[in-house]
């Protein structure tokens, strides 16, 4: 595979204009759907577009960045999520019952927070010495967050993975995703001493175990796959990976044997049509309404899946199919596959193996999470309740997705044109 340096970047201007046109159409549809209440959304959409353009121009001028593929994918996906969330607001407005609905405004804030965190993390990891210095405290913080989650966590829909502080609720495991890669990639890059490997494995088992205690099995699987990627990227040892997988399988069987309720949670898997008004409700509705959308969708705000619980969070893929149509849904799916291919192509050019490992594990994490979500809501895999990256409504997920993008961004030397020359001189 050719390294990214030799691939000419897309022409960022045209790319940005096309995405903007798509977003303008989406936003217009939302406003038409909202009717006389549409003014409420003008500011929200305007700010979104301004930030999108301002970020691009700023990076273009300040550090002469030429490649924006990752940011544009993130903006493209975030924009879709924002539009869907906004139609939910206009439902409430038309309803008259909740005139102060402000999902869209919140979602916009999450996107902005995500973008800021993306830029900060880019800066933090630009210096590998800084990363090494930050590793121990970050590992401790991760553990503390998960521990706090177990103690303070609230049981929402069967999983104890939410913390509410001062009326603001968030999912700690989303943030730990980022820290997990930060710690893992850094550790293994430093020294392949037995001690550091053992430390890392203890840390990983701790994280995944904590997720099991919280009954957040979907996120546990996401962490586990990320753990495998990091371990393999560093050691290149297939046997170790196989051993870990076997151990995990044995563990899974033991859990199912001793805690039958775990298996019970997945009893509807492949049987959703037997209980369309019970356990199979969410997935059957996703399939029914996805099929109703056809290739081109029914239009924003015109769907019926929105009436189903968790429509804009876990089930949002169904809403995309119903309202945006199958073609856009497919574009979303392909975006994530493209991110992984981009990462693989870029790994060679990474300035340090820390970047290669971090980028690969972040890209793999996003793909696994997307798979669990998309195939889960369509009943090809068990439903685990993980979010659709960038599109599902919610702050923690949005911020962690943008931060994962920072890891992927780090492999692309074109993103740091100023330092590119030095690197080449060194190399």
């Amino acid at each position: 595979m050719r390294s990214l340096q030799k691939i000419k970047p897309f022409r960022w201007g045209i790319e940005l204009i096309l995405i903007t046109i798509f977003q303008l159409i989406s936003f217009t549809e939302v406003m038409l759907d909202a009717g006389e209440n549409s003014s409420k959304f003008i500011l929200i959409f305007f700010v979104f577009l301004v930030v999108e353009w301002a970020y691009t121009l700023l990076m273009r001028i300040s550090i002469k960045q030429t490649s924006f593929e990752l940011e544009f994918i993130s903006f493209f996906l975030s924009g879709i999520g924002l539009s869907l969330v906004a139609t939910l607001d206009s439902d409430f407005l038309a309803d008259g019952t909740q005139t102060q609905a402000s999902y869209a405004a919140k979602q916009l804030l999450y996107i902005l927070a995500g973008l800021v965190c993306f830029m900060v993390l880019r800066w933090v990891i630009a210096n590998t010495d800084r990363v090494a210095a930050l590793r121990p405290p970050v590992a401790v913080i991760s553990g503390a967050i998960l521990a706090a989650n177990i103690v303070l966590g609230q049981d929402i829909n069967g999983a104890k993975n939410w913390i509410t502080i001062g009326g603001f609720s968030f999912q700690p495991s989303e943030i730990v995703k980022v820290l997990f890669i930060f710690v893992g990639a850094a550790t293994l890059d430093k020294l392949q001493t037995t001690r550091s490997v053992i430390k890392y494995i203890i840390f990983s088992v701790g994280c995944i175990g904590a997720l099991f205690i919280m009954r957040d099995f979907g996120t546990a699987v996401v962490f586990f796959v990320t753990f495998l990627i990091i371990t393999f990227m560093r050691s290149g040892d297939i046997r170790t990976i196989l051993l870990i997988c076997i151990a995990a399988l044995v563990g899974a069987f033991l859990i199912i044997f001793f805690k039958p309720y775990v298996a019970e949670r997945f009893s509807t898997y492949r049987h959703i049509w037997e209980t369309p008004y019970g356990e199979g409700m969410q997935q059957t509705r996703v399939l029914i309404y996805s099929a109703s959308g056809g290739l081109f969708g029914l239009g924003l705000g015109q769907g019926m899946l929105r009436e189903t619980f968790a429509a804009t969070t876990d089930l949002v893929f169904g809403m995309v199919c119903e309202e945006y149509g199958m073609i856009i849904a497919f574009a979303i799916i392909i975006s994530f596959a493209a991110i992984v291919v981009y990462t693989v192509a870029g790994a060679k050019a990474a300035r340090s193996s820390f970047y290669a490992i971090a980028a690969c594990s972040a890209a793999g994490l996003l793909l696994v999470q997307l798979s669990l979500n998309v195939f889960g809501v369509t009943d090809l895999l068990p439903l685990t309740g993980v979010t659709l990256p960038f599109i599902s409504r919610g702050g923690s997920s949005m911020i962690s997705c943008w931060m994962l993008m920072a890891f992927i961004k780090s492999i692309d030397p074109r993103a740091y044109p100023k330092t590119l020359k030095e690197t080449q001189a060194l190399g």
Partner: protein
Amino acid sequence: MHNTAKRALTLLFFVAAFLAGVVILIVTFVMNSNTWATYSTNQHLYSKGNIISAGTVYDADNNILAKTENSVRIYNDDSTVRAATLHAVGDTEGCISTGVHSIFQAELTGYSLVNGVYYLKQNSVGNDITLTLKSDVCATAYSALNGKKGTVGVYNYKDGNIVCMVSSPSYDPENKPSAEIINSDEYEGVYINRFLSGLYTPGSTFKIISSAAALENLPDIYSRTFTCTGELEVKGSDRGVICNSVHGTLNFESALNHSCNFAFAQIAIDIGKTNMQKTVERLGLTSSYEVDRVKISKGIFDLSGSVDIDIGWAGIGQYTTQINPCMMLSVLGAIANNGVATKPYFVKSIINYAGVTTYSNSTDTVDEINMSPELSENLKSLMRSNVANYYGDYNFPGLTMCGKTGTAEVSNKKSTALFAGFSADEDFPYAVIVIVEDSGTSGYSTAIPIANKVLQSLR
């Protein structure tokens, strides 16, 4: 450095597995989207389990059989027509799974994989479906059955149009009987279209098939004579095959005219089980095909493990023999149509909201039925002889009918009355099958008058 880059390539396996999953997802979608979208909890299409909006169903003369007005499904004005066409049209609850309401649900609601339910939402109309049925003929047939269970099917053996398809018991969908009544014996099998999905002991109508086997396997059949003593004694069995009468000496043709069990049991035994089985299978009676996406039931003719007496009974349409009315009607079509079995259908065309025809049926043949023109000619003249020389043409005024009656013995019930036949008139190419369950009367006295009434109403 380079190690990590190489290891990164393994991520492509994730991508490949992921894309394989996406392909499975797309295939699953394409294959099931019709079923999913038309599921009764889809609020785009249904309200409280009833279709909110769907196209109109017309009969062959553009009479409305079912339409939607203000989110309510309304049927034909006439209650007899409603009951007579219920199994073809279907209900709104999906109990009758072979009606167009179920089978063509996606088309009726205007659903398509490409556009989803978009057009239905935009225009509040689905696609219109025109059937080949004539509602007045169906109503005549339903009335003629007079509350008896059974079925009447009539189709044009040249173009395949089913003009009459009635299954009884039925009910008026606008005054559906209570759950208790509908589950009683009186309404047993009410949701089944007996014409497409039923299986019946054919009795003497099966002698048409035994005749075909005789013509194919016994070269001297026309010169044979049979001396009927009222009971055919069969070697290896204490009891013989009982005949309906003591017919004395008969030849092949008069044996069929008189429906002599003695002669036909003897013929079947002479042909032997292997060759009987072959002919029945070659004529398609144990096969199935699709009538407008509905797979018809397969008939049963199984002589494996049978002894001579069983073969004798099977040859006169008893033993374990069962036929499907629609398949039998197609065989009659083949006899009438020079050996070519035209495939029956009852959905003529589908027209979308914009007036464009999106589906139209055309004349096809039933590949499962293999009959030589010579065989069809011989069978035709034998069946013509039945009506002309035995039943009497006065039973079918103005028609050149060919046919065979049957009175089938069924366990735990009174006998079934049957008539299977066709008009040989060039300008009236219709085949007919009438089956009246639990009648206790003969095919001649019960089924022939019904066949005639229905055919006369068609002229």
